[in-house]
């Protein structure tokens, strides 16, 4: 089992640890709801160092990225980040990822922990360009400091003007007296904040500085449990749940990051889907009957006919109601439509809603 540079710190804090994507990761500390609310209302910090990071460099770095990803990376300038996904050549998704333009001919790709090897192989396989790849995943500590008070709480740690940074931009700067930290105005919680990338050697020093700086704001360490409820309330897709090798970006509602201004793997196939429509669609729903939807529960109509399957579900800590996402036939995908979720042989009523939930 792999560990992050902070595993010891999490254990000392009494975190409940569990295996995730080959890493021993903190699932929760003080309690999922408590951590969730700290992020929604103030600030929380996640160790997400299990995520993968690849550098792509060279005269044709952009050409490689344009080929493998759906979003248009030619629109990036140094200091900008883009959300994108990689089609698998069969209309499905290899992974979703963030693309950072570090400099001309230099990009950082941030991928899901569970897909590091698969992504690496896939990108190598498609690299018929003058582009060099380097997997730096094992050297990088990634902290997600999230919540509306993050900029205020962390401002003393850096000269970078956190409060002026726009969403999906980044700067390289000094943070907690450590040089060359990537400070990125991104995150997976929908509550604002930053993700910071730095060398493992500084992990404990920066963690302690973040906790200290956040003290007056009630900062809480938060685990993967809260990370999941926070992202689901905002309707962000999770690879392995809501998107995978069998779902297309169009079905998943990722048309907004699928740009036909360029050619890429599956661009013809996906363009056709966009023009002609798809047979199923990822929808968000809220429970009307009391119940908590969970991954793989069946979605049925009033007569019990199967419409699809739940891909993510939880009890929303903010709304105190069951929420979920899942694929249903396109004719049943309208907002306001009633659907039913099979929960232990009962059919519980739910309603398709617009995202975000919160």
């Amino acid at each position, binding site marked *: 089992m792999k560990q992050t540079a902070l595993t010891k710190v999490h254990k000392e804090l009494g975190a409940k640890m569990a295996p995730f994507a080959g890493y021993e990761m903190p699932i*929760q500390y003080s*309690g*999922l709801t408590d951590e969730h609310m700290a992020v929604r209302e103030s600030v929380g910090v996640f160790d997400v160092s299990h995520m993968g990071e690849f550098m792509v460099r060279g005269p044709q770095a952009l050409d490689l990225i344009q080929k493998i990803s759906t979003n248009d990376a030619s629109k990036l300038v140094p200091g900008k980040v883009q959300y994108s996904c990689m089609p698998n050549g069969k209309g499905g998704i290899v992974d979703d990822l963030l693309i950072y333009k570090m400099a001309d001919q230099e990009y950082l790709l941030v991928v899901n922990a569970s897909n590091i090897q698969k992504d690496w192989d896939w990108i190598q396989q498609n690299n018929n360009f003058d582009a060099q790849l380097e997997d730096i995943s094992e050297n990088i500590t990634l902290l997600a400091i999230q919540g509306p008070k993050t900029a205020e709480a962390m401002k003393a740690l850096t000269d970078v003007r956190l409060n002026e940074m726009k969403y999906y931009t980044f700067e390289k700067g000094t943070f907690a007296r450590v040089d060359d930290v990537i400070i990125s105005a991104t995150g997976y919680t929908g509550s604002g904040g930053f993700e910071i990338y730095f060398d493992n050697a500084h992990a404990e020093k920066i963690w302690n500085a973040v906790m200290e700086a956040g003290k007056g704001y009630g900062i809480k360490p938060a685990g993967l*449990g809260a990370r999941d409820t926070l992202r689901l309330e905002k309707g962000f897709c999770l690879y392995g749940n809501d998107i995978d090798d069998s779902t297309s970006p169009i079905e998943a509602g990722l048309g907004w990051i699928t740009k036909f201004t360029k050619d890429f793997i599956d661009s013809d196939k996906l363009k056709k889907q966009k023009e002609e429509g798809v047979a199923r669609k990822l929808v968000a729903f809220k429970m009307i009957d009391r*119940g*908590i939807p*969970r991954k793989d529960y069946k979605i049925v109509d009033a007569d019990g006919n199967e419409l699809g399957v739940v891909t993510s579900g*939880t*009890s929303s800590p903010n709304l*105190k109601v069951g929420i979920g996402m899942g694929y249903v036939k396109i004719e049943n995908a309208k907002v306001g439509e009633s659907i039913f979720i099979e929960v232990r042989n009962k059919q519980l009523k739910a309603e398709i809603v617009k995202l975000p939930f919160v």
Partner: protein
Amino acid sequence: MNVPSELKYTKDHEWVKVEGDVATIGITDFAQSELGDIVYVEIETEGDSLDEGEVFGTVEAVKTVSDLFMPIKGEVIEVNETIESEPEAVNDDPYGKGWLIKVKIEDSSAVENLLSADAYKEEIA
């Protein structure tokens, strides 16, 4: 982990308090901690006579759902009403306010099959 010595336990992480022929049943401190924040407890077996090991309800936590198993054969004679409005009582006070059901024990000799506090402690060690 709190494991009160006066109670009996099961491998399914339930506790049993026997008073005469009535058993009060709940989940252990270990169980509530493993489940995490409990959203609600669903028990629709009041009045039913159930065998040992049969499901008498389910606990829905934010992240997971778990069945509740009868530690002992008998009739479910009461369900704790408090946990309907305050499911968090199961997290906060699993051996007190967060008890789940009362069962009229059919065969009192079955109590001997339950685990002692020490045996349960070994179980979760």
